[in-house]
């Protein structure tokens, strides 16, 4: 059986792979969306923080024998802590200025992080093994599905929806949203808004690091791995609507699927299809698919 001239088995497997890549986009763009939505900072260091997550996991395994599961918790905490320090010492000073300043600062930081890791570890990249429990794959009939990739989808979706739930449905989330709408009044009600903002940035960064650990067994752990991905993720955020939580999750998954299909029908265009969609969305709905016009 064929769908548009492509065997249906290949079609199905490409959809599945699109979903897997989409879950990476979702978790990375979610972090960006949170940081932008609540702090008004365009976090260009997101790719570097993703790379650091992967490297921390690799260092933990090779130098200290710390396994994948521990690293999955530890690396986001450590990289998140780095984020907290950055927010307290640098980003904090920029909130009242134009977006451009935050963008320039975080872009500079990204270059510095990448440079330091390149100097220390070289550029060829390091191999991180797939954890024992998740090795091998299952034959789905239409494709051989590595178990680890399945785990990536499950873990990413769980974290994404957990985050969405926390921000949209809990009291902490309500404080956060209120704190960004009108910090003075929330502060007057006895809530420590600056602390809340620091926590938010740290959490957004931790999400990037979490994605980095998830990616480590799939891609070579290399200082340049983040800069290859970050531009696409920014496009995802723009398409979803800057700052929209659910928008970034749904758009991330959706664009993963679109990209996967492009790779079958017209592979040369697979790197630009996301930007093509971005242009159309910006023309038709300038605030993004899920954004609210301001």
């Amino acid at each position, binding site marked *: 059986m064929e769908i548009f001239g492509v065997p249906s088995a290949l079609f199905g497997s490409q959809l599945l792979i699109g979903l897997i*890549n989409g879950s990476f986009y979702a978790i990375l763009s979610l972090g960006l969306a949170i940081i932008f939505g609540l702090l008004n900072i365009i976090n260009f260091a997101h790719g570097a923080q993703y790379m650091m997550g992967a490297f921390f996991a690799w260092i933990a395994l090779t130098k200290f024998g710390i396994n994948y599961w521990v690293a999955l918790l530890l690396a986001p905490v450590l990289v998140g802590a780095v984020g907290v320090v950055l927010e307290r010492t640098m980003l904090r000073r920029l909130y009242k200025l134009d977006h451009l300043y935050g963008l320039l600062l975080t872009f500079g930081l990204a270059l510095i992080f990448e440079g330091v890791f390149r100097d220390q570890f070289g550029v060829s990249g390091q191999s991180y093994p797939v954890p024992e429990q998740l090795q091998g794959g299952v034959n789905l009939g239409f494709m051989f599905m590595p178990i680890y990739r399945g785990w990536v989808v499950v873990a990413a979706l769980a974290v994404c929806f957990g985050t969405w739930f926390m921000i949209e449905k809990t009291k902490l989330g309500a404080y956060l949203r209120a704190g960004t709408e009108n910090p003075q009044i929330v502060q007057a009600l006895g809530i420590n808004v600056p602390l809340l903002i620091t926590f938010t940035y740290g959490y957004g960064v931790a999400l990037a690091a979490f994605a980095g650990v998830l990616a480590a067994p799939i891609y070579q752990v290399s200082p340049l791995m983040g800069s290859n991905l970050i531009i696409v993720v920014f496009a995802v955020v723009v398409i979803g609507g800057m700052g929209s939580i659910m928008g970034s999750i749904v758009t991330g998954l959706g664009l993963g699927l679109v990209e996967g299909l492009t790779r079958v029908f017209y592979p040369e265009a697979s790197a630009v299809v996301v930007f093509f969609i971005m242009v159309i969305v910006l023309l038709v709905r300038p605030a993004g698919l899920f954004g609210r016009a301001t």
Partner: protein
Amino acid sequence: MHMKKLLAAACTTAVATLATGAHAQISGDTVKIGVLTDMSGTYSDVAGPGAVLATQMAIEDFIAEAKPAFKVEMVSADHQNKADIASNKAREWFEREGVDTATELVTTSTALAVMKIAKEMNRVALMSGPASTPITNEQCNDVTVHYTYDTYALANGTARAVTQQGGKNWFFLTADYAFGQALEKDSSAVVVANGGKVLGSVRHPFPASDFSSFLLQAQASGAQIIGLANAGADTTNAIRQAAEFGITPKQQLAGLLMFISDVHSLGLKNAQTMYLTTGFYWDFDDDTRAWSKRFFEKHKRMPTMVQAGQYSSVLHYLRAVNAIGSDEASKVMAQMKSTPINDFFAKNGRIREDGRMVHDMYLAQVKTPEESKYPWDYYHIRATIPAEEAFQPLSESRCPLIKN
């Protein structure tokens, strides 16, 4: 042409006869070697600091062996893979610092820029790192030596040998830019010429990080061999993901440009059973082992073919300067071209009129983890590709030096 050749030969002989005691012909009584390479970027593991070390070793060995009457010095710089930085540096070296030869020059764009300046300033350019064939074709000149390998040899080596060994059906995974397309085109021609068949190809964007979609298309093609017409991180990521999706070892991969540093960073588990073409393998014989172990002691990594070629080219250059007692570019080039190269890197290597150094290349297959007995025990050498077969024949040359 004949007159010119005769004249050159006559001059060389005359100079060689006069050489003893004629060291005044070496400018400043010092031969200065410039290493212009990528010290921090994408190719720094392939060339970079290891190439600088190889140059130092060549100079030390030359001084110990020849006890020359002149001094030998080395300078090095990072060209950051940028043609403008490379040409500025080369010009500064040639004009103000008395550098006699610019060497290494990984990344074709830097190589093409520097070889023009070398010609203009009448200095020698020794190229170990760059891959592209225009260096000895459209852009060729008489002061440049392309030493270690080129894209023709890579395509020709791996594709020919794999097809002849029964890998008849190919599918290409190609980086969608000039280098990848050229490699695919050359390799396809070789596959077909050897009775094989190209079932298809997929062009992936450069750079890409997820190859699973492309790999599944390669898998669905049913090809025995998946040719990787890409390089660096694209190649290593594609190889890892091929193993992840159970594509290897059922189908085999052929990396059309792979260095031992790539295999090292991938690990044998991911790279096992792959074919690749290389100009040098450290564990080939006693000579290569002896040199490579010295290199390893200082660098903590085994040499890539670029680094080994760098040593050999610098040593060959210094021996030529010593033999004729001059560092004048055309005389040194004539001496280098007329002397065969015999060292641990090349057996009976020779530099042709177009500047191509031809030597045996090797078809290697990456070992499985079980087959590897000690660190860096990575390759089976499956075949030696004789120099005449490995490189583009002069009859196909597009170099103006050949046509007249």
